[in-house]
């Protein structure tokens, strides 16, 4: 029973992680940017949702739509306004990652100043056990999280594999200058990728909001987790992100059970360290780094 609880809890958290990580992984693969500001997009989505659904009292569906729009615009704006000038000057990877971190910090502390440091959450009453004798963590929330994440991730996988847009994205990731020479609108593709990544974060932000809440200081942990997942699952691999997310989720929830809640981040970063030391190309990757 206990093992069941750990597995279910890990799976649910893992699915939410995968939603955050898949966009991060996509952008890393496609644009070569370590998008630490992805955490900022996550926070923006969560706080917009909170502002619309609680402060303004709008219906849930409307609030989700609003949060999606704001997040997508925010994600695309980060690419257009912030990253673009740096890319134009051929800034180094380290410069861009530093800027990205700066953006995350700015958003984090703006939110702290406006809303206070406690973070926000919504009690939607989703946390009630489904089965009287089943594991307690098996509730409506878990079902929605797992189903929602699977639909979103398989949808993205389909988009990348089967549509024209996906094909041009793969071409751009493979060799962006060649793709540009062949007439692909690289800049637009990169912007669309940012918008997609932002859209994938929204369900994760909404679900975290209904569970433990969205807290500004957690955003960095989430992004680093996404980096672990992206390396684990292979950069740009959508299904890899799902697998990686679930692995990290279960590892963390196991850690919480064995030691204590405070230690859960330890396992993620130990994983990152071991991975980079032993297999920096990821579990499924073959390319040298």
């Amino acid at each position, binding site marked *: 029973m206990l093992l069941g609880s750990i597995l279910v809890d890990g799976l649910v958290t893992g699915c939410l992680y995968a939603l955050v990580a898949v966009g991060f992984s996509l952008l890393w693969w496609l644009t070569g940017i*370590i998008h630490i500001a992805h955490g900022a997009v996550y926070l923006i989505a969560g706080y917009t949702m909170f502002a619309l659904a609680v402060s303004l009292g709008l219906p849930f569906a409307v609030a989700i739509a609003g949060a999606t729009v704001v997040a997508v615009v925010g994600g695309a704006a980060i690419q257009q306004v*912030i990253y673009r*000038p*740096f890319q134009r000057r051929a*800034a*180094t*990877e*380290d*410069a861009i*990652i*530093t*800027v990205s*971190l*700066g*953006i*995350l*910090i*700015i958003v*984090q*502390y*703006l939110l*702290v*100043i406006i809303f*206070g*440091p406690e973070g926000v959450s919504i009690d939607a009453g989703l946390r009630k056990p489904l089965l009287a004798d089943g594991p307690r963590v098996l509730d409506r929330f878990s079902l929605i999280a797992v189903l929602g994440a699977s639909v979103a991730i398989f949808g993205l996988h389909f988009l990348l594999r089967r549509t024209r847009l996906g094909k041009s994205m793969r071409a751009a990731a493979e060799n962006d200058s060649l793709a540009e020479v062949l007439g692909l609108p690289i800049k637009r593709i990169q912007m669309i990728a940012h918008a997609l990544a932002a859209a994938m974060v929204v369900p994760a932000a909404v679900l975290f909001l209904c569970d433990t809440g969205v807290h500004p200081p957690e955003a*960095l*942990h989430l992004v*680093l987790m996404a*980096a672990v997942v992206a390396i684990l699952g292979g950069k740009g691999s959508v299904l890899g992100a799902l697998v990686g997310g679930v692995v990290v989720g279960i590892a963390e929830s196991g850690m919480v059970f064995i030691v*204590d809640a*405070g*230690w859960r*981040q*330890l396992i*993620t*970063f*130990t994983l*990152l*360290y071991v991975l*980079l*030391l032993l297999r*920096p190309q990821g579990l499924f990757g073959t390319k040298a*780094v």
Partner: protein
Amino acid sequence: MSIFAIVALSLNVVTGAAGIVSLATGAFFGLGAYTTAILCKAGYPSLAAQLAGVTIAAVLSIVIALPALRVRGVFLLLVTIAVQIIFTVIAQSWISVTGGDAGISRIPPYAPFGVPLRGVAFLIVCIVEAAIVYEFCRQLMRSPFGAVLRGLRDDETGSAALGKNVGAAKITAFAVSGAGAAFAGSLYAHYTAFVDPFSFDLSVSILMFLIVILGGAGTANGPLVGVLVLTLLPEIFKFLPLPPGVAAAARQLLYGVLLVAVMYFRPQGILSTAPGARPIGAIRT
């Protein structure tokens, strides 16, 4: 401020000379502080505690830098961020040793020669030690080892092709830097007589990184300028009528803005003589 100068000078070895961005400085700083706090409270002399902290930090730096043998640039940066967060987690959660969020208080004053130093005497000792670290770093940059570090910053593949042991150089740079930060951390613990996890979190690492790049990474005097600017600048907030929580957040916000602005307007720093086209911390991958 001279304590921060020591930290910044040591980070300059890694970030400035070798061109590796490290965001784990706060962790090593904290490691030195906590080692001093724990050992001094257990009755050990402060020099022994300081040396212990420095040794632990150096060894740990080497362990952290090991992935540097296999991966480059951004991966290493991710590792340092991870190390920083792990340090904070351990400091917060290993309550029996670190005191958790409450930290460790009533640390005895610095007594390198058996006489406790307070006030002005302590300040003088700090300045003297900072000067020693400064001179040490300057000599290090001028030495053949410094040349190897600059070589791998500017062209890693080229350095390797010339037969330089790139991996070993990186790891040594990390060890020196970690040891320096821990040395300063020990002084810090004596100075404030109190350590807690929040004094050594990621924002400290970012502050140190900003100090180094703002002053001009790789230059001997750059970190000193950076320390001057960045420790005085947040003092402005003390004059504004802000509630305490907001003031702290505003300070962090300022660091974030600076991070973006510096990268945008003057990535080579205030004092640097490097051409503007080559942003600092550049690692060609």
